């Protein structure tokens, strides 16, 4: 196999995007994955390409990435199911409506196309929402994709650009000049990118990333039941509660007509089994927003683990204390969106190019990402 310029560990959406970007830059790249391409958190999530404004850094990376997705959209294969459906941030009452106005100002100042829907236009746009919602913010350029198929596409693009895919093997350790696989084989490489999500702490010491469990339910086909990705604005409160379990109304139309219903966030649970109590809370919340969901048929429920950091920003860049190990993990619930931006940023850092967005907020050496 010789020596690679870079070995990417993990072929989820972030790892495959990185491998594609690094191969495109002319680096001899290896992509190593123990399971199925896009089979981890990538497969467990919703596939919402979202612009977010929790912090300036979060906005910068999500918006940068969203525009990269728009560029890529035409080239995605049909099974990537890119659907530019837009997202509605639902305000249940006047207090939440204040947040709609604030977001509208924030995004408009930054040239993100958004629109305010009042109570009536929201009811017309989404007739299955309970009547009496205060309104919503429409983020027009939000989209959805089917992440495992996209990851597979990114991996195959990387392969066309010369990357070598090593499937079925887990990286056990990363040394200075080689990664050792679980069968003892050494993959020699000049540098490494750790992109295995919540599994990253097993490869680099001191990385503070917690698995945050989530549940999703998918229904049979009900074409037209919802038109947009919808998220309750209460989501901001619940998803931001860092220490307690939370659920929020989050629904997504799939191109098949199926509905994907979320979401939940739990810390301290490392068992992948579906927790009926959590599913129940999550669905009850969804019924509050869309009572008509009750009678629809659910086909599957499943769980996944997001790689969460303390400050809700991903960890992208050189690993402290290492000369050639880079990190690209900690994307929590935004890995699908930010995968493309992460890959650009990481390649720029690795190749000493000037990144399109400021890299500092995501650097691994910020005190809360690493300890000890």
């Amino acid at each position, binding site marked *: 196999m010789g020596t690679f310029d870079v070995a990417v560990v993990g072929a989820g959406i972030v790892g495959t995007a990185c491998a594609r970007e690094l191969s495109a830059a002319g680096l001899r790249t290896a992509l190593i994955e123990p399971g199925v391409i896009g089979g981890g958190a990538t497969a467990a999530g919703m596939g919402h390409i979202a612009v977010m404004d929790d912090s300036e850094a979060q906005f910068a990376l999500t918006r940068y990435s969203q525009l990269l997705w728009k560029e890529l959209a035409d080239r995605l294969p049909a099974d990537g199911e890119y659907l530019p459906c837009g997202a509605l941030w639902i305000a249940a009452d006047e207090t939440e409506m204040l947040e709609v106005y604030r977001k509208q100002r924030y995004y408009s100042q930054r040239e993100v196309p958004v629109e305010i829907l009042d109570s009536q236009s929201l009811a017309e746009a989404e007739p299955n929402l309970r009547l009496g919602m205060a309104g919503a913010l429409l983020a027009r350029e939000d989209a959805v994709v089917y992440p495992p198929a996209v990851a597979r596409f990114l991996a195959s693009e990387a392969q066309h650009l010369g990357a070598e895919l090593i499937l079925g093997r887990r990286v056990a350790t990363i040394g200075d000049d080689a990664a050792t696989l679980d069968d003892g084989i050494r993959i020699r490489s000049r540098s490494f990118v750790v992109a295995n999500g919540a599994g990253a702490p097993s490869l680099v010491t001191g990385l503070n990333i917690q698995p945050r469990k989530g549940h999703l339910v998918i229904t049979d086909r009900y074409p037209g039941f919802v038109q947009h990705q919808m998220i309750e604005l209460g989501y901001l409160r619940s998803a931001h509660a860092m220490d307690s379990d939370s659920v929020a109304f989050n629904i997504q139309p799939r191109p098949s007509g199926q509905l994907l219903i979320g979401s939940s966030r739990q810390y301290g649970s490392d068992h992948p089994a579906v927790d*009926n109590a959590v599913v*129940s809370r999550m669905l009850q919340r*969804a*019924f509050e927003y869309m009572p008509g969901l009750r009678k629809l*048929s659910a*086909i599957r429920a499943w769980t996944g683990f997001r790689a969460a950091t303390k400050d809700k920003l991903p960890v992208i860049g050189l690993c402290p204390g290492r000369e050639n190990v880079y990190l690209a993990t900690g994307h929590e619930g935004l890995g699908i969106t930010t995968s493309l931006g992460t890959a650009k940023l990481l390649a720029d850092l690795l190749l000493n190019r000037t990144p399109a967005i400021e890299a500092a907020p995501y650097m691994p050496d910020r005190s809360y990402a690493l300890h000890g």
Partner: protein
Amino acid sequence: MSRGSRTADILVAGAGPAGMSAAARGRECGRSVLVLDDNPSAGGQIWRGGESHSSGSQSTFWFRTFGTCGADVISGARIIDGDAKRRRVIAETREDAFTVEYGKLILATGAREMFLPFPGWTTPNVMGIGGLQALVKSGLPISGKRIVVAGTGPLMLAAAAYFRKHGAVVPVIAEQADWTRLARFTLQLRRQPGKLCQAAALRFALRHSRYLVSCWAEAANGEGRLESVRLRQGAKAWDLACDYLAVGFGFKPNIELGLLMNCRINDAGIESDDVQQTSQEDIFAAGECTGIGGVDLAILEGEIAGYAAAGRADLAKGCFRKRNRARQFSASLRRAFALRRELRSLPSATSIICRCEDVVWQRLEQMQSWRAAKLHTRCGMGPCQGRVCGPILEFLLGLQPEAIRPPVFPARLESLAAASEMEESIDK
């Protein structure tokens, strides 16, 4: 929606022959018995439609015995979730969802038809033997229609005779097994004179049909409507005009509920011991879900499971000899009618494998695992939850299905949402 909770000494999942005999024997021993069945009425696949649609003294006896045994029966109920440790399940009907706490659980979940893909197999009027029979039972007129029956096993003969009785013409019955295996099987029938007589009677009823061995349906022709079937026998292939093509490649045990309850599964189905007990102490399994064996075996296993679940293993013992003989017969059936390798090369690049999600063969051919097939093509992600395409890919590619998660059947969102509430109310 009701949040009812029920209890029973013995809960029987399924009201086919095995479930009926299990329930009857459990009641005979004085236990309270609840039967949950997802069909509109008892009888399972083989006695579908109830007593009026089934002939024979055997079914008459069991409909009567089951009907008068005093078991509670809830039809149209599906078990969607369960917990072996806490000995309870969650079930859903059209109206509501409820929990059942049981002392012993008897799985009698039966089997489903196994399908194999070939070009045109999704054309209208190409259907499973059982599916077509069910349609005829519910009133589909087939008088004067030409029905080709293709696949494997003795049930093809029974089905063909049934179609003839309803006025259809069955020009050909195409059996994929070869003469050598059939001859060996027929020799074994000598030990079962009853079965031999049945076979002879069927053959006589079908004297106007050609019975071709080492022969199978290679393609269904016709755009939007079936026009003919292409049959192959060795080097010879020809088209035969027909209105229906009834295919039957055997059956697949319904093991999903067993998997959910952590019962051990073996090559045949849900593993069970001499008294039909599974690897879980309080769970028994009987009938086709333990391995395809036919109605006689199902009834015997049901009786044994019913007695044993009621704590009367002594009574169960009386059925052992007959059950073991029926098991031998079913093993020889499996050997004789094992699917030949050539059937693996039937699908063309554009043959649909997963009907729910319209996934074609060329997208699946290279898949290394069931998970990869699912994630990258959506195969098995539709409402049948992989029940049709799972066995197909197991046969074509040797892919093993994944572990199972609730709901084991599609369920209303309100039932899923109520599950934990129901569990909590029991725990209190």
